[in-house]
């Protein structure tokens, strides 16, 4: 099974984007993003706090739908899912 991780803005600069990641059955969203983010310590620290939780301002989506930070540990990732992780928006 494979999922796509998309980082945007500063997170993209640190970690890349459109990352194809293998996922095992039962994989959680937070576990998957932690694994990918650990490839760059600055990127990891930008997204996660000292306890390994998503920082308060980080926005997470699964297949285009917002996932609350508190649910990221119980949200499962399946084949072909798209996970997006980004900082607060600043358009306009």
């Amino acid at each position, binding site marked *: 099974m494979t999922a796509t991780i*998309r980082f*945007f*803005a*500063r997170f*993209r600069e640190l970690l890349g984007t459109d990352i194809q990641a293998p996922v095992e059955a039962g994989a959680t969203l937070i576990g998957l993003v932690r694994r990918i983010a650990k490839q760059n310590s600055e990127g990891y620290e930008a997204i996660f706090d000292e306890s390994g939780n998503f920082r*308060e*301002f980080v*926005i997470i*989506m699964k297949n*285009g*739908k*917002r996932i609350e930070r508190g649910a990221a540990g119980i949200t499962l990732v399946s084949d072909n899912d798209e996970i*997006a992780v*980004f*900082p*607060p*928006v*600043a*358009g*306009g």
Partner: protein
Amino acid sequence: MIAIQHEDVDIGALVRNAKENGTGAVVVFDGIVRDDDIRQIELEAYEEVAVPELRKIAREASEKFRLLHVDIVHRIGRLDIGENILVIVVSAGHRKEAYEGSRFIIEAIKAGVPIWKKELTKEGGRWVPGEHPHGSGQPGYHIS
């Protein structure tokens, strides 16, 4: 027209097209790259989410303020000082609805549409912080 695109847009053509039957007012919002001691700005969007969000905002604004026509064109990529970033054109029967509808749309975009901009300076670059720390994908743009 609801679009996220690299190309600039012909505002005059949008205004002409906005004059539906019953139009008494057209309001144009044109967000421009300001010279804040920068060289350029660079914009990026999560387009697959941002475009549906823009459509949803346009729909809500049309219903809430009885708008007759709405265009939203948000540009991405590298833009020079003075270039258009965001163009919103709305028409309504009366000025009050047109002004309020336009304001609703820009505030909603700033609150919740996944678009980011980076100011490119001589020293490098800096990401512009969002005005709404938790905003995106949430209907947090219901201004009164």
